[in-house]
């Protein structure tokens, strides 16, 4: 009788342990889902702002979900290695504020605090504005004289007629060009500012920026020089 009672207790304990493990997994899954969704939204906001600054329509770029979702971490690491101390300080403060708000939200949520619902709204809004600002800031940096984008020069299959207007950024043209993106079989690039006018490049508000496109079918070789080290 006692042994049977003990076995029942043991079964109940096992079931409780299983249920609690399942609940934990469910919670972890839900948190991971929410974090992935937020990472995608912030990543998308960042890239949409960034590419819009170069005249590209982010809606037709068809960027993969997985790449967009993980890119914000990659962007933060790159910016940490290439940015000024001021921007590094701002990035650190934003990340710390995000962690602090999340911890406060968990604490308030557990204790049924009335302000718990406000914190995620502040967090989401803050991160969205942060992603937008960072995209805008990085685009300005990469369009200028301290661009971190790879340089590019093209060799065409059919060399341009000497009397015709040459496309920019051909091999040997003497121009420094930066590659913004290669997607949908097309290279998107621009001519970098001349060194002596770097100051003017950063202070011309509202000026147009010329971005050029060349399709894979037109080129024999694209010479791309990436920046290794950051």
């Amino acid at each position, binding site marked *: 009788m006692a042994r049977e009672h003990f076995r029942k207790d043991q079964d109940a304990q096992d079931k409780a342990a299983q249920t609690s493990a399942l609940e934990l997994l469910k919670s972890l899954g839900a948190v991971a889902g929410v974090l992935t969704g937020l990472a995608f939204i912030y990543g998308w906001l960042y890239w949409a702002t960034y590419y819009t600054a170069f005249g590209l329509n982010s809606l037709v770029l068809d960027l993969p979900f997985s790449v967009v979702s993980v890119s914000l971490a990659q962007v933060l690491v790159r910016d940490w290695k290439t940015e000024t101390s001021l921007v590094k300080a701002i990035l650190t403060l934003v990340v710390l504020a995000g962690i602090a708000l999340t911890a406060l939200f968990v604490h308030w949520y557990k204790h049924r605090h009335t302000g718990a619902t406000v914190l995620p709204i502040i967090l989401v809004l803050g991160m969205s504005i942060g992603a937008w600002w960072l995209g805008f800031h990085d685009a300005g940096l990469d369009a200028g004289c301290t661009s971190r984008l790879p340089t590019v020069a093209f060799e065409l299959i059919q060399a341009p007629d000497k009397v015709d*207007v040459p496309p920019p950024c051909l091999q040997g043209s003497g121009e420094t060009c930066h590659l913004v993106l290669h997607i949908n079989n097309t290279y998107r690039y621009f001519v970098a500012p001349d060194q002596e006018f770097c100051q003017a490049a950063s202070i011309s508000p509202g*000026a147009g920026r010329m971005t050029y496109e060349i399709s894979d079918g037109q080129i024999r070789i694209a010479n791309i020089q990436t920046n290794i080290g950051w």
Partner: protein
Amino acid sequence: MTTSRTALFLLAAYAAHADTVITRDSSSWNGHATVSGGVVKLNATFRSGSVTLQFGANYVRSIDFNSTVYNAGADPSKLLPRPNGGSFGGTVYTQNKTNQKCQDIIVDPGHVSCDGKPIPGVIRILVGNTQ
């Protein structure tokens, strides 16, 4: 009736003559360009109104002759480097696939002249590199 038609034609002809000035800091502005004495003057329209922007020959990378007139941004006239005059030379490309290197280029509304000779159908001027 004839007068109004003529006025409309002249207006359309002026509107069709619009240009894009691309500078060496990779910025670009749209408007109506003239070049004389080595200085590019661009009559450009911004949200705040019309202004005449002035660019030195050393600051300009190219001038495209096209139909673009709109400038979405703010008036940059106070921030541009001061033009320093000098000669405005470069390569002039035309619609019928010819090009010509010129030491002194002058642009009036709708007309381009290379070392004193008028050149019809110009689509682009690449500044510098005249050797």
